[in-house]
């Protein structure tokens, strides 16, 4: 008799909260009111007072904790194992960072409390600013943007402001075809047209194509370095010179900064403006998709345009400076994702300068090790030396009708999160693997063994790989159905 999965186990069958609800159940306690109660209709006007919130949950405390604990078991996380999503830099999230972000004086600080009672928070921001400037080689940084794409927008608005001041904001942003989707979307939101540049046969920025494209209409080039193949753009200094000669600027997407910290600084190779992803390079938790942090660092000529407020030394302490007439304004209320900034600074402090550089070297070594071990089994379309990630193609496996997405799903059965699927777009059937410095040789070898085993399965049992995963609570999900007739909220079943 074979052992079968039991679908009636309560944990994988946890219902939605709304289905668990019954009238009168409650999980909250409030203190007894120490002031006279107020009649809502009298205070607010009867027309402003709502009826009960239809359908809102009514559950007990233990039901709340069990509900979310059961749901949590349906997730994969870094705490389970390797999460080699290329370009996402899924590294370990140190738990001390969670603790310090919850220290009362920090977690309960109100953004409008007096500056004299905010010195601790401002000092943290100032210290993080100075660390980020040393790491990037730039001249000034704003911590206000809430995430990477938000940082991109801020950066492009700074470029626009500078060019406007010089008399012409220009029309176009150049973007290599290997770029993240946020780059062209950002350019459009900032009011620019996008012109794509084809990568060279080696997957690099094509300097000749760049020279032809840079006209008086071009505001900037947005480039990720190392690029999305994990390859350092070796002609970056020359590219910056081409742009600068024509009065255009170099925007660097810092998504792959984990390959550079302590090794090379964008400020030293010609970047005028860049963003950092604190949730990638600086270990703040991704949390299932946010919060992030997207500081933007600039060279001196862009500094006057940075969002308000700016930190300013004021005698003995720190102050917030709003008197910045050339500023692009605000991109977010208040001062940024402060709680994320706290965590990023804690990470930098734990590592120190040498530790940060060592982490970079480990991340690059791990990626090269994977590349070397998997090269015999998977097609490697671009062969220049790579840094923190390696990008394979599914070309060999596609002959058996198995695509990158199928191999990714099969990895789940081996206990790993998939790599990044089908990106960058310049690689056919891309498999983009970024191990980060977090992984030990033991975990890397287990991952490599899994990939090699899957390569064998593709030859022997392609149908089994195409229908993976087979060991998860939820089997392959019908995404087409979800999009065809969107059901975006729960409604009670009709009687």
């Amino acid at each position, binding site marked *: 008799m074979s052992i079968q999965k039991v679908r009636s186990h309560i944990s994988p069958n946890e219902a*939605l909260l709304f289905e668990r609800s019954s009238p009168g159940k*409650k999980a909250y306690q409030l*203190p007894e009111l*120490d002031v006279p*109660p107020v009649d*809502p209709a009298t205070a*607010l006007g009867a027309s402003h*007072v709502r009826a009960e919130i239809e359908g*809102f949950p009514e559950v007990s*405390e233990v039901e709340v904790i069990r509900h979310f604990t059961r749901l949590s078991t*349906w997730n994969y996380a870094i*705490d*389970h194992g390797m999460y080699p999503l290329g370009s996402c830099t899924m590294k370990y999230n140190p738990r001390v960072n*969670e603790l*310090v972000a*919850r*220290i*009362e*004086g*920090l977690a*309960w600080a*109100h953004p409008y*409390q*007096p500056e004299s009672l*905010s010195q*601790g928070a401002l000092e943290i921001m100032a210290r993080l600013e100075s660390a980020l400037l*040393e790491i990037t080689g730039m001249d000034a940084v704003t911590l206000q943007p*809430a995430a*990477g794409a*938000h940082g*991109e927008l801020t950066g492009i608005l700074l470029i626009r402001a500078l060019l406007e001041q010089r008399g012409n904001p220009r029309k176009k942003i150049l973007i290599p075809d290997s770029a993240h*989707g*946020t780059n*062209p*979307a950002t350019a459009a939101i900032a009011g620019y047209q*996008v012109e794509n540049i084809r990568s060279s046969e080696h997957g690099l920025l094509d300097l000749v194509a760049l020279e032809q494209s840079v006209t008086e209409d071009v505001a900037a080039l947005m480039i990720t370095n190392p690029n999305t193949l994990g390859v350092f753009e070796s002609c970056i*200094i020359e590219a910056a010179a081409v742009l600068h000669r024509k009065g255009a600027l170099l925007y660097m997407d810092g998504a792959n900064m984990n390959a550079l910290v*302590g090794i*090379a600084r964008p400020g030293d190779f010609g970047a005028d403006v860049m963003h950092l992803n604190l949730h990638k390079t600086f270990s703040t938790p991704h*949390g299932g*998709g946010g919060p992030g942090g997207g500081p933007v660092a600039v060279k001196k000529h862009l500094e006057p345009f940075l969002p308000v407020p700016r930190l300013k030394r004021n005698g003995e302490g720190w102050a917030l400076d709003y008197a910045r007439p050339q500023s692009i304004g*605000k991109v977010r*209320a208040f001062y940024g994702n402060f709680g994320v900034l706290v965590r990023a600074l804690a990470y*930098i*402090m734990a590592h*120190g*300068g*040498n530790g*940060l550089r060592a982490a970079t070297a480990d991340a*690059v*070594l*791990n990626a090269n090790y994977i590349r070397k071990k998997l090269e015999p089994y998977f097609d490697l379309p671009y062969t220049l030396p790579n840094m923190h990630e390696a990008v394979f193609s599914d070309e060999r496996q596609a002959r058996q009708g198995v695509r990158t997405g199928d191999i990714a799903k099969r990895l789940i059965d081996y206990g790993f*999160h998939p790599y990044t699927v089908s990106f960058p777009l310049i690689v056919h059937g891309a498999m983009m693997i970024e191990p980060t410095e977090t992984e030990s040789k033991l975990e890397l070898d287990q991952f490599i063994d899994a990939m090699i085993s899957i390569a064998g399965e593709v030859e022997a049992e392609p149908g089994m790989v195409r229908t993976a995963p087979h060991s*998860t609570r*939820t089997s*392959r*999900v019908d995404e087409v159905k979800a*999009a065809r007739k*969107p059901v975006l*909220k729960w409604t009670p079943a009709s009687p």
Partner: protein
Amino acid sequence: MLVACGLESLEELFAHLPEAVRLKRPLDLPRGVSEYEIVDYFRRRGEENAAGYASFLGAGVYAHYRPVLVDTVVARGEFLTSYTPYQAEISQGTLTSIFEFQTMICQLTSMDVANASMYDGSTALAEAALMAARLTGRNGLVVARNVHPEYREVLKTYAKNQDMPLTEFGYDPETGAADLAGLEREINDRTAAVIVQSPNFFGVVEDVDRAAAIARRSGALLVMAFTEAVSLGILNPPAADIVAGELQSFAISPSFGGPFAGIIATREKFARQMPGRLVGETTDTHGNRAFCLTLATREQHIRREKATSNICTNQALIALMATVFMSVYGKQGLRELAGQNLAKAHYLAGKLQPRFTGPFFNEFVVSTGRRSPDEINHVLLGERIIGGLPLARFYPELPDTMLLCATEMSRREDMDKLAGAF
């Protein structure tokens, strides 16, 4: 591992980099420190802040009690250390909780569709304005001056580069509510969105229905912002076309201004112009209920420069805090919580001179009498109380006023002390 890679030293990994780009010195940062030293450093910084003060600041960031269950849930590594749920089969925990979040936001706002959250309320409002422009094919924005000043500044930053003219209309000097006659003057056939906030920055509950009627007569959409989500426990959900709000009040620490979670909710017919992530229900190959990210053809990773927004992340973990909060309080609790806020604020207001006559929830503007707002706040600091926000900073025409907020955490004795300083 080096041997396997055919290398002799770690430095060789970087040998292919051009000489000119390489940093030839160690980073000039202090050496790494231990866990204890890190905790000690941040404790000290916390002590330099206002720890242990009673506070009456609101203005978009509110002090509400955070039920213990909230951090218990979000501290779980399965939620904390997972990525965006693109791989649905191993992300059902996050996806299911977001689906519940979207449902609760719809219930709360009486809207048909809510997204999986935005960076915060201010950026949600800016994105809602851009959304209204796409939906109407118009580009004008007409904004009430009693919308949160920092939200308006963010809106200006976004609107300016989209070539969207933004005009403002005032407020009634008696009631503190938006001046709807002023709105009638500013609105025209180029107006994409009329933007009001309720309760507004002065704490006054707006007549959103009337503003919406004016907007619709001109073919514009009504966008309603909110900063105090607890108010929705007691206030009628708005008759808006798009709701853009901030959920900080739902168990999200003030944290010096972030991270927070914004929302956008709207009517069904507008859903495809929404920015941000959406989770939808579907089935797996065995026919079991499952959830996945959906309608991604609106988003940047598919549509690139034609996307509805450049937004990539949402605020999943922060939205989860709000989801747990809403689950803990539930139907009855949110109402009772809102009732306590209402009672505390009205108790405090009863001891002072409210500047406006419009109905208010847990915030209100007071006129300061013999002492200036700064003097009053200075006196209060001596009693370890942080007073209100002097409004002259944002509204020069309102000197000698401050914005005060009372929540369920405001103690009667502190309110009495506060009133005594006026």
